[in-house]
């Protein structure tokens, strides 16, 4: 078995086909799944192979998500197609009050092995109700796991892992990445474990932490920075909850500078949580404040010129990196001050 180049949508279709083949309890439910192999081609070939297990429903998001929950509670492994991530609002009670809580409220009796698949993100002039990045809502809801892959290989490996996981997984996939192509293993057991980040580019000067399509912009920025003598390490988180703080810490102990980039708007975004954790756990390792690059705090506008202005660009990442690089390294000064501090004071300040 080899490796070939696949788009994210074909990687997804392959993961689904393999898991549906492997496990007869896996099925897909949602709107407009079969007519064109999904609105993004993500279900290509599946309706022919599994006609009973890919279910087109009426436009009833509340019941679609509820159907996934009820089926998961009674022995199935559903994949709920949300059509657009923005539409989660029409099923928020099912996701937040039911899916996230039924296991806990039943004292661990209930098991909800389901995937809620939601294409998110902006950049296609779809305006404010078809362009959001809403991961923070679910990261902030105990009981849900949240995944947002970038590379086609991770789409396949994480989707397969999410289907096999016994807990509810919210699986975000950026709309502009469906045709994004990369090497994907043919192997049927190609799994990417939830909760593990990946270093996409090694560097020693600054760590850029990102996920989903912003990984592309960060890699672009890192390429330009390298030409200017700054070696950026780029981390693709892949899973947002639980997220890989260990890998972030390992990188920051080396680079001592952090920039976090996401497409979701700034205030209350996931970047704030990562920055807080870095502040709490790695303060003494930092040479500069942690900076965030994110969309502006407005709904996503329609006109391309407006949309581009609101969304974070590679240029914004470059600027943030240049800012954190201006701070002098504290590594040496601090080491000196510690040797000068008397033992008693050191203990008190510790």
């Amino acid at each position, binding site marked *: 078995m080899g490796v070939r180049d696949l788009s994210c949508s074909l990687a997804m279709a392959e993961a689904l086909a393999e898991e549906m083949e492997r496990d007869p309890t896996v099925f897909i439910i949602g709107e407009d799944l079969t007519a064109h192999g999904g609105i993004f081609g993500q279900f290509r070939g599946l309706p022919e192979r599994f006609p009973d297990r890919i279910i087109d429903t009426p436009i009833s998001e509340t*019941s679609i998500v509820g*159907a996934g929950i*009820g089926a998961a509670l009674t022995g*199935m492994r559903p994949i709920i197609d949300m059509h657009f991530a923005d539409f989660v609002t029409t099923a928020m009670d099912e996701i937040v*009050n039911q899916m996230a809580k*039924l*296991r806990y409220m*039943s004292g661990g009796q209930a098991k909800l092995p389901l995937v809620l698949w939601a294409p998110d993100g902006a950049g296609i002039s779809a305006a404010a109700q078809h362009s959001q990045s809403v991961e923070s809502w679910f990261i902030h809801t105990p*009981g849900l796991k949240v995944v947002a892959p970038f590379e086609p290989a991770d789409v396949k490996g994480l989707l397969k892992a999410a289907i096999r996981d016994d807990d509810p997984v919210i699986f975000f996939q950026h709309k502009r990445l469906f045709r994004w192509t990369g090497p994907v293993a043919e192997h049927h057991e190609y799994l990417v474990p939830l909760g593990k980040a990946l270093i996409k580019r090694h560097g020693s000067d600054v760590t850029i932490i990102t996920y989903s399509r912003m990984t592309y912009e960060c890699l672009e920025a890192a390429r330009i920075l390298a030409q200017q003598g700054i070696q950026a390490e780029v981390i693709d988180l892949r899973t947002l909850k639980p997220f890989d703080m260990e890998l972030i810490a390992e990188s920051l102990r080396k680079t001592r500078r952090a920039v976090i980039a996401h497409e979701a708007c700034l205030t209350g975004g996931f970047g704030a949580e990562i920055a807080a954790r870095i502040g709490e756990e790695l303060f003494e390792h930092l040479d500069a404040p942690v900076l965030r690059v994110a969309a502006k705090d407005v709904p996503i506008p329609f006109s391309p010129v407006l949309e581009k202005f609101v969304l974070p660009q590679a240029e914004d990442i470059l600027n943030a990196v240049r800012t954190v690089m201006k701070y002098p390294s504290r590594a040496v000064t601090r080491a000196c001050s510690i040797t000068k501090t008397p033992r008693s004071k050191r203990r008190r300040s510790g």
Partner: protein
Amino acid sequence: MAYIDPYAMSPEKKIALLETMVLIRVFEERVATLFAQQLIPGFVHLSIGQEASTVGSCAALRPDDYIVSTHRGHAHILAKGADPKYMFAECLGKKTGYCKGKGGSMHIADFSKNILGANGVVGGGFPIIIGAGFSIKLRKTDQVGMVFFGDGASNRGTFHEACNMAAVFKLPIVFVCENNMYASTSPASKMVAGGSIAGRAHAYGIPGFITDGSNVLAVAEVVQEAVDRARRGEGPSIVETETYRYKGHFEGDKQKYRTQDEIQNYRMTRDPIDRFERVLQEEGILTKTAIKEIWAAAHTRIEEAVRFAMESPLPEPEEALDDVFVNP
């Protein structure tokens, strides 16, 4: 369509119906006293007066059928076979409760009995039973899913979505509306358009039934027909039972929205247990003494359950961190 003559029901089954109704009544009254003694934290919703509706409905189910219940759910859960001792323990927030003290009165579930849980969100059960319906279809079993709800929940959008979805896919579901005339403080007469909830079935092209919710045999007959239909793969039905709750929306409810006379009148003329006891005596199935014994047995069982719950340990505080995920 197979006609189930309720009066052809065996005497043993009829006695069992009365026993369950009495057990529920005694359970609920005991919850009220424990709550009054401030031994139950939070708030509780009792269904005293609605026993016939619940017991008649569950009588039509097999052990492997699914139910989804409501915030007023103790009766459904007992009627589907849950053990009162773990229910009391849950109401008291004990470690030995069905949900280890994490759910409380409003969220009791027993997955071993296919009780998919009471639900704190009014109308929250509809989408879940749709999922059970799809699951049954995909697994090709002849199970049935039953969702209980009140007149209040019939006005949620989830009800419309679920009725349409169940009808479109002919899902094996029975919608049981226990119309107790009040959604919290709001009378159904002012909040439900169209005259009846079962009447809405016409819009979905499925059967709708209205039945006397204080007559356990009448409920059993109608629900059995709906359950049989679902089991045969002929799709969903809506059954509306006209019933009444004697207690407030929650314990402590001042009930300014109705008169004491109304409640008393219902109790005197339509109490489901009184009515059924009279029927069983008239049919010569039970004597007064035998009925007294049923009540005594229920009291004994409930007191044993309460003792178990009271003597059970509280959870360790750190247990609050368990049961979020299967694989944290």
